[in-house]
């Protein structure tokens, strides 16, 4: 692209920055207060990306402060590439999640793949070896060719990247609702393991130290849309150029191994390391300088370039993948070069830490930017936002909640098992290598994935959860429920929840109703995190998720990691032996607003949520975990979408067993989605001990049988369901929808 760049004066007059996302107010503030002159083209571009919501969090920052982010285990909270939590023995677990919604909506395969690539870099830039990936995917209903295409491509992209990297994709979630049709959500999480002594930070300091660039060459990929949007292409198909980022997992595998060798074996050469993610070179370099209060000078001619004639603006804003930035102690540049060469990679000195606090860019013998580092990173105008309670919430509070009526419970259960949000996701998860590195004790298909920590008795459990429906109906309670659900999945696997990462997926925050949703749901999540003592150690915000003016459900994703102290205490989700006793842990109420049952019977969701008692659930989960650690529990499964009936069926799938259940709940209540409940099986001889441990939290409801039948006697009736047939329906539902012509 040979774009002749506008002069400072032309920028002031023609305001191209508006299209780059910078407001007139921000531009004036930069001119008058920060620089006291007009910024040139490159500088304006730097401000535009660094002051974007994605880099500056200018909209969401005030809300994010609500999250607790510390406890005695947290070694690194939000602010670095990823958060770090102590797991004992000098080891730590590192994790973070990232959204790639917009790129995936445009180009689903590469969008999803580069999302995974990006989050993996965040983990190894901390000095940690990535050990697992998870995802959280939300699509429209499977009834259109476009949606099927998006699903297939997104899943292929996630698998394609992780499989090639040799990082197992071990878990995740996938839901389907109309509101995600035009704006699917693609969130990826990565978990890493490290020795605490190898902890790294993204810092550039020490005058004279080198700034080195490693990895893929820089192309014009993903330059913030602006250049391409403004180039006048009448028909997008005719465009001969593309700015879509393409992932190269092979390159990233080499880069990962080389960086881990550097961080773990040659810490003395290294001052800081950071990946180049969103906003590429500008964001990584100025953040590294800003954190250390350093000045920086970069010679852009030295940046490895894939395409000819790139401008300073393009080099700085490119989002080419698989690149890292290092700050190397002066004198060790050659050592670093040789280390990377050994992996077939080039490491290049592109600049130095300099005196002062300026951010200096030189290109073709000219100074193309000379601005204070902090003007890009710290001086962004935080925006106050308007908030307003949406009418639908007030309306729902005035009305009485919907109360279901079911005539045929068995038939309803069969139908719910075939709802895509509940049905088996195996056709997708089996395209992910979930076992590579041979640490996966529990892979996709259980409540949480569990990986052993080699060489120790410990294991880590991990999960991603989000339920936009609940948050849509009541952001605050829905936010609490999202955290509870994640924690419940970990508890069910026998793990103590340690900490949280999140992806906050919302619509346009300038809409006061949407900002209110964001704020309220964060308050709910924060309160739950405080109650559970699971601080938020990293996360990501994705706003403006809308299509044709329709926002998605507010959909915060909670990624949670838990610790299992002894491999012996890993609890399976599936029933284990005939004659084991079945208990329900936690009381069931009439919680039907936003439930799968409501969606099935009414085609939509509505109503208001009942408050959840966090303290009560926390106590219950603590008791259950203690019972598990004492060896009193054979299997456990948390109750989520579809309630007790679905959970009971699920615990038998893949086994040769059935269940004989007798409960005082009504037929409808079998589908209630009250948060914080579990179905647990216990060996007959441990019944008394288990009940003593659980106090009044556990209710005996039946036993495990050897036939594949689910027999349930409930308050107002009874039914028997052939589980072989039910499992078949549950397994075939999604393959069937994916194959059907629309």
């Amino acid at each position, binding site marked *: 692209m040979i774009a002749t760049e506008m002069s400072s004066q032309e920028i002031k007059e023609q305001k191209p920055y508006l299209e780059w996302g910078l407001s007139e107010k921000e531009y004036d503030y930069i001119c008058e207060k920060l620089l006291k002159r007009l910024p040139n083209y490159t500088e304006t571009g730097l401000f535009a990306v660094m002051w974007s919501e994605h880099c500056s969090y200018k909209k969401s920052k005030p809300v994010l402060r609500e999250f607790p982010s510390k406890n005695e285990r947290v070694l690194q909270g939000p602010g670095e590439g990823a958060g770090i939590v102590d797991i004992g023995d000098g080891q730590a677990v590192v994790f973070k999640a990232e959204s790639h919604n917009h790129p995936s909506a445009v180009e689903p395969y590469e969008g999803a793949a580069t999302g995974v690539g990006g989050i993996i870099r965040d983990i190894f830039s901390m000095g940690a070896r990535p050990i697992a990936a998870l995802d959280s995917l939300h699509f429209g209903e499977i009834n259109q060719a476009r949606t099927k295409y998006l699903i297939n491509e997104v899943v292929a992209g996630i698998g394609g990247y992780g499989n090639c990297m*040799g990082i197992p994709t071990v878990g995740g979630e996938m839901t389907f609702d109309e509101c995600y049709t035009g704006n699917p959500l693609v969130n990826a999480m990565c978990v890493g393991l490290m020795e605490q002594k190898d902890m790294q930070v993204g810092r550039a300091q020490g005058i004279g130290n080198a700034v080195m660039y490693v990895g893929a060459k820089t192309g014009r990929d993903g330059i913030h849309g602006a250049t391409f949007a403004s180039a006048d292409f009448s028909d997008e198909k005719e465009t001969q150029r593309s700015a879509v980022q393409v992932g190269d997992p092979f*390159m990233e*595998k*080499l880069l990962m191994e080389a960086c881990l060798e550097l961080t773990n074996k040659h810490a003395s050469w290294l001052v800081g390391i950071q990946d180049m993610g969103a906003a590429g070179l500008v964001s990584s370099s100025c953040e590294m300088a800003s954190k250390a209060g350093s000045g920086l000078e970069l010679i852009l001619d030295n940046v490895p370039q894939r395409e000819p004639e790139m401008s300073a603006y393009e080099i700085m804003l490119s989002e080419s993948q698989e690149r890292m930035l290092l700050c190397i102690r002066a004198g060790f540049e050659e050592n670093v070069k040789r280390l990377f060469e050994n992996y077939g990679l080039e490491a290049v000195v592109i600049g130095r830490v300099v005196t002062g606090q300026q951010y200096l860019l030189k290109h073709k013998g000219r100074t193309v930017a000379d601005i204070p580092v902090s003007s890009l990173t710290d001086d962004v105008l935080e925006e106050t936002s308007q908030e307003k309670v949406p009418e639908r919430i007030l309306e729902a509070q005035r009305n009485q909640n919907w109360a279901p009526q079911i005539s045929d419970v068995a038939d309803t259960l069969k139908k719910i098992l075939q709802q895509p949000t509940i049905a088996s996701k195996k056709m997708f998860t089996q*395209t992910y290598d979930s*076992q*590579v*590195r*041979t640490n996966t004790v529990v892979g996709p298909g259980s409540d949480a994935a569990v990986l052993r920590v*080699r060489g120790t008795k410990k294991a880590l459990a991990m999960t991603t959860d989000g339920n936009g429906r609940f948050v849509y109906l009541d952001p605050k309670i829905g936010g609490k429920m999202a955290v509870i659900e994640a924690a419940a999945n970990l508890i069910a696997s026998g793990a103590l929840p340690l900490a949280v990462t999140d992806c906050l997926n919302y619509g346009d925050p300038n809409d006061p109703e949407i900002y209110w949703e964001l704020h309220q749901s964060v308050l709910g999540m924060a309160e739950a995190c405080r109650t559970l003592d699971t601080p938020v150690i990293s996360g990501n915000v994705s706003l403006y998720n809308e299509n044709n003016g329709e926002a998605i459900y507010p959909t915060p994703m909670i990624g949670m990691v838990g610790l299992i102290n002894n491999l012996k205490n890993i609890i399976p989700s599936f029933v284990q032996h005939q004659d084991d006793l079945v208990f329900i842990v936690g009381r069931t109420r009439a919680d039907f607003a936003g439930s799968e049952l409501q969606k099935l019977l009414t085609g939509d969701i509505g109503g208001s949520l009942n408050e959840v008692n966090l303290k009560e659930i926390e106590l219950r989960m603590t008791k259950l975990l203690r019972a598990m650690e004492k060896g009193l529990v054979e299997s456990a499964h948390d109750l989520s979408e579809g309630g007790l009936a679905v959970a009971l069926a699920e615990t038998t799938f893949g086994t040769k067993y059935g269940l004989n259940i007798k409960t005082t709940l009504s037929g409808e209540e079998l589908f209630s989605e009250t948060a914080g409940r579990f179905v647990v099986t216990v060996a007959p001889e441990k019944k008394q001990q288990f009940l003593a441990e659980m106090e009044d939290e556990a209710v005996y409801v039946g036993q495990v049988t050897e036939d594949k039948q689910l027999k349930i006697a409930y308050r107002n009736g009874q039914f028997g369901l052939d589980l072989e047939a039910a499992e078949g329906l549950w397994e075939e539902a999604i393959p069937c929808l994916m194959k059907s012509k629309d």
Partner: protein
Amino acid sequence: MKIAVIVFPGSNCDVDLYEALHTVCHADVEYVSHKQESLAGFDAVMLPGGFSYGDYLRSGAIARFSNIMPAIIQFANEGKFVFGTCNGFQILTEAGLLPGALKRNDSLKFICKTVKLEVVNNQTAFTTHYQPGEHIELPIAHADGSFYAEKSVLEKLEKNGQIVFRYAGENPNGSLNDIAGITNERGNVLGMMPHPERAVEALLGNEDGLPLFRSLLANVKKEEEAAR
């Protein structure tokens, strides 16, 4: 006795082979870089799974030109034991140490799951610890695992007992004659798509791969003793 696990750029099951041999079977194992040119001192060579060179072009096609390959070929020609799983199998066929080729799965998708296998030949150095015709289960994890060879080649494989593992039950990828693993004519080179190294610990739910490593280690030892 010393065993080499080759590391190509993009190998990612190298650790799994190493741990299976070292931690589980207590064997003496070393990683050997694709840049090395010699296998002196090693008694068996293992080629791991993964995506060597990103599997760009064809799986295993570029790795076969690595510096280490002439040494591996010589090693095989001397009758020493060479084992390749998944990408390792693909590399061995590309290098001509095993006949045939591995093409894209019929489903066109990557598949990770556990499959049923029959041990067709338990007389190879890699399978003596299995029973003849034994049915086992091993994980697979590949996109290019559909074995293809011309008819005459297939007939020869069948006749010579070179087919060591066959999918028993569902054929997951469209392999001809349900082939999951084969040896060369001499029987000292084994390639297979399933991952025995992922099935050596009860903790991970499967130990059906263990006899393969035990067989190999026992037979290497036997050769050693015979040579002495």
